């Protein structure tokens, strides 16, 4: 689909799938016989506009890798990701410069419209909170410094970090860092937000605040894919749950149904282990 058509589809708000991933495969250390691991083994998912998809599964099952395939931070080896009408595979057209450029442009479209929040925040330590938030708008969206600054302060206010705008990450608590990281993602005005265990690195007393922030975002209509071990959040805020194990989707369904009455025995084992 052409870019114009894609943008049109985005604007029309068709109430349909924002993102569809089909047959995603991903291996690491390909070509090294001993060390090669096949992390994702044919994963499909689709998320509709405004929907919150919660991804759960044991450590090492490939949840983070799946999120990173969606924005091509870790390009899939096989399969495709359709996002707002664009369709991309992990195969980079290397031969023809024109195609290569079209590919790069599509990549940038994905990444500027998909926000990502990481377990370890990944704030830029050499920049203030405000500059962290303003970096994407200036360097990826082409806003002027002043526009970006304005937007940055606005987003920081929204997550209650307005007063910390001039602080460096090292001067913030974990919870504050994660708020800034959320503001940084939201400043791009994304159509889809990816949360990769956003609360796993936080002190217990700070988890609630971040979950609250995510809930507010979901209620505002944001489309979200959330990897988490917080089952309370999953049940309350999630629309659907996807349980992954060893690189495949084992079970998928309504959030309440999957968490309260899992059908597959691996899901049952995982949930009873995590809820005990």
């Amino acid at each position, binding site marked *: 689909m052409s870019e114009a058509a894609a943008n049109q589809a985005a604007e029309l708000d068709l109430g349909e799938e924002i993102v569809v991933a089909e047959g995603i495969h991903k291996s690491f250390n390909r070509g090294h016989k001993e060390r090669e691991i096949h992390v994702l083994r044919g994963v499909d998912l689709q998320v509709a506009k405004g929907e919150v998809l919660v991804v759960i599964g044991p450590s090492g099952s490939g949840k983070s890798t799946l999120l990173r395939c969606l924005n091509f931070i870790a390009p899939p080896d096989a399969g495709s990701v359709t996002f707002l009408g664009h369709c991309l595979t992990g195969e980079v057209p290397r031969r023809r410069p024109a195609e290569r450029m079209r590919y790069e442009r599509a990549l940038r479209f994905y990444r500027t419209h998909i926000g990502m929040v990481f377990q*370890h925040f990944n704030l830029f330590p050499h920049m203030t909170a405000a500059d962290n938030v303003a*970096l994407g708008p200036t360097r990826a969206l082409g806003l002027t410094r002043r526009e970006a600054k304005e937007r940055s302060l606005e987003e920081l206010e929204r997550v209650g970090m307005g007063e910390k705008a001039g602080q*460096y990450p090292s001067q913030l608590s974990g919870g504050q860092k994660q708020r800034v990281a959320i503001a940084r993602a939201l400043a791009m005005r994304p159509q889809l937000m990816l949360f990769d265990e956003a609360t796993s690195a936080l002190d217990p007393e700070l988890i609630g605040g971040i979950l609250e922030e995510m809930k507010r975002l979901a209620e505002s209509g944001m489309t979200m894919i959330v990897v988490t071990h917080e089952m309370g959040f999953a049940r309350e805020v999630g629309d659907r749950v996807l349980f992954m194990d060893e690189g495949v989707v084992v079970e998928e369904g309504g959030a309440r149904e999957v968490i309260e009455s899992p059908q597959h025995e691996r899901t049952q084992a995982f949930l009873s282990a995590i809820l005990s």
Partner: protein
Amino acid sequence: MVAYTFQWHVVPESAGALAHGLKLTLQLSAISFALSLVLGLVVALCRLAPSRPLRALAYTYTQIFRALSLYVYVLFIYFGISAVFGINLGTFAAGVVALTLLNSAYMAEIYRAAIQSVDHGQREAALALGLGHTRTFSSVTFPQAGRVAVPGLVNQLVDIVKDSSIVAVIGLLDLMGTTIQLVSTERAPFELYTATAVAYIVLILAISAAAALLERRLARHLRGGGSGPSPLEWMQRYRFGGRVPT
């Protein structure tokens, strides 16, 4: 002790010549340092490039130019190259080339280690914001790697200043070359070498102090407003010219 008549008056009498030598030493060091800062970064980027031949080339570069001493390179470049190709580089240029080649190889390793020390999540976060590879490097990776590299690069500068004295072997009248020449005419080796040694030490202490100040400024954000390394700490950090293990 043998009977030796100190002739300290020789030092102030030679001050003009020594100052001229010092100026050459400073120029030689500054130019070589600036060039190796740039060349070293280029070589480091090649070593980390996706292209395999480029990586191999950069690896060979760092291995070759760290393998021999500056002494050998200076003689080789000044006499060897000019004999074969018939180009007369001049002593100053030969010194710059030798110092730059050797030090850029060391600096490439310092840069490479510094770039690799930056958490992978930093790059991912920048890419996820939609920054391209170049902007990710210039806005996120390099500013952080640079701070890590500063102490190593400063040690390299200290090495350059000290090693630049070797260029006297091809007749350049830098601080060392001038001193050697004065010694042969004035017959006051102890006095002249002492003066020169003091000049080198003062120069290197000044570089270290400036570096500590720079490092303190760069690290401000990491400590949430502390005061930076104490004088004792930076004297230990900059071991006045020891090569940084890479």
